[in-house]
């Protein structure tokens, strides 16, 4: 198309159909406009190929490994279908690892939800303007710094010579810390080598993943529903239980999917901070690495997937997604 298509004099009326934009891209825009499905197809193919082949494909390859076994003598993988690797998961040492990880993930999730809710509630209902910006900054800032740096920083904080021990001593509460550390199972020599330490660091590291979806869900609850509830005679506690919580629950569940699954799969935090007893992530790491038992590592990595599936199924049954 050339510029002559434009009216030469101002007295001439403009054309009712404008000329096509020149060049390849002009034709392409028109083509895409006429065939939106072609556009969608071209737009989705690359990510779907990536997701389908590289991501899901490798996941399936991994899962297939879990149905093979390792020959005890040669240490070679025996490529025959068997459920014996899954049976190994149930022997007491391996089952302890699973149980320990699931209990930890559940406790971390519950604690995160309790800590996150008031923060998210404040941000969604009260914070405005620069306070809201400050909230986002405060929640996101820890995500910008290195995960390892944060975990090692916590090791120092929780160590016997660390600032927390010092603080408790200064407050004349050293006996309290000692008492907690003297507790069986969850206690230990210092916080940094106890389950309590692992728990604290998990909660710290995953908290933003709980706050953000909870806040987003709370933000979507219209304020007049809370007013309507109060108007109809509900005390603040009843309004919380019967209106706010059910409507915010999808957000809390979304957050808990993050905290729960991230804790299930993490192998660094329990290795640096804790009682050196294995979690699922560490078991996968050692089985596929030093032990060279890829089938067992694969079977271990199926466990979080199955647990998450069960968790989501229960959440759906309980109506957690009804308000979506």
């Amino acid at each position: 198309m050339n510029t002559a298509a434009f009216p030469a004099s101002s007295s001439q009326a403009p054309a009712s159909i404008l000329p096509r934009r020149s060049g390849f891209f002009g034709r392409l825009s028109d083509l895409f406009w006429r065939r939106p499905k072609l556009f969608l197809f071209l737009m989705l193919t690359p990510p779907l190929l990536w997701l389908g082949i590289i991501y899901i494909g490798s996941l399936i390859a991994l899962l297939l490994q879990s149905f093979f076994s390792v020959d005890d003598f040669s240490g070679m993988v025996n490529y025959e279908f068997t459920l014996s690797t899954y049976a190994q998961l149930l022997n007491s040492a391996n089952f302890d690892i699973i149980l320990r990880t699931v209990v930890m993930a559940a406790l971390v999730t519950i604690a995160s939800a309790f800590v996150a809710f008031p923060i998210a509630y404040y941000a969604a209902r009260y914070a405005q303007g620069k306070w809201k910006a400050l909230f986002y900054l405060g929640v996101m800032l820890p995500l910008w710094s290195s995960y390892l740096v944060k975990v090692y920083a916590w090791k120092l904080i929780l160590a016997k010579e660390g600032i927390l021990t010092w603080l408790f001593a200064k407050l004349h509460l050293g006996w309290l810390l000692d008492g907690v550390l003297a507790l069986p199972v969850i206690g230990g020599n210092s916080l940094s080598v106890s389950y309590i330490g692992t728990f604290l660091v998990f909660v710290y590291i995953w908290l933003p993943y709980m706050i953000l979806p909870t806040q987003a869900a709370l933000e979507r609850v219209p304020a007049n529903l809370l007013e309507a509830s109060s108007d109809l005679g509900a005390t603040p506690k009843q309004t919380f239980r019967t209106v706010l919580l059910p409507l915010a629950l999808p957000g809390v569940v979304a957050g808990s999917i993050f905290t729960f699954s991230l804790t299930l799969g993490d192998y660094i935090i329990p290795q640096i901070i804790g009682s050196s007893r294995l979690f699922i992530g560490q078991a996968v790491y050692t089985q596929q690495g030093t032990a060279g038992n890829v089938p067992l590592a694969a079977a271990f990595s199926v466990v979080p997937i199955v647990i998450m599936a069960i968790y989501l199924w229960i959440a759906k049954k309980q109506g957690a997604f009804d308000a979506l």
Partner: protein
Amino acid sequence: MNAVRFQQVSRHFGQIRAVDRVDLEIAPGEFFAMLGPSGSGKTTCLRLIAGFEQPTGGHIEIFGETAEGVPPYRRNVNTVFQDYALFPHLNILDNVAYGLMVKGVGKAERLKAAEQALELVKLPGYGARRPGQLSGGQRQRVAIARALVNKPKVLLLDEPLGALDLKLREQMQEELKSLQRALGITFVFVTHDQGEALSMADRVAVFNDGRIVQQGTPHDIYQRPKTRFVADFVGSSNVIAPDTMSSLGGERRWASLRPEAIRLTEGSGVAATVKATSFLGAATRLSVETNGARLHVTVPAGQPAPDTGAAIRLAWLPADVHYMDDAA
């Protein structure tokens, strides 16, 4: 005793005086309308009665009892919200039964009461549906049922008909009015639609800038507006400046003259030119110019309406000219 009583009630938001020293008395069983443009303080007054807002100053009584400092859930007053505020996660029956549920009424009893309330608003059998599955008009009825099931002493309605189309709105106006008569509950109704206020209410308070400009029966307010604002806002009367009024043969004071009170005459009368016409169905509204002033004149359907540019003559009864006390 009054159902609702405001004594010098104010509600300020920072520098903004949303409600400014309002005195108000609403009688039990009355259908009371608060009329005004947006931002005039009428909704804030409603929220003060409901308890969502606390007054900055003054005193509020509901059936003789002090209301300030009492939270909404301890007031036997219920609200029909502008956008209905139905709970999306509950079905219709549970929505209606909500007020009874939080008060600890047993399940069978409260669901029966909710079903009855749904019958009252002509929605029997809709209990199992979700709010999202109902039309705007139906949701509005559910909101009314949800409020009425609590047997409130005062029912507050915040522009409840605003989102409905014209036909439905007229139908709901009649139904609300007959519902109010049948139940004998005090209704306080907030609206910016003067037609709605005049047709439904026993008494109307006209709000402007956080204050009540005039209170009275619809007839009073329409026929004898106190100020230019009321004359203009209620029924869009012709507000005539003192100079123009005297040149038209009246007193040298601000005056209000209803468009429908002006007749077209032959021969005698005030000369005027038609500047614009708009066809309203039941009438044609003329915008005419006379003695340098613009006036609106309505010509009922059936009478010939002059065309734009026509020279006409106007007449009205001196009794239809209403002089106003102040110029504000």
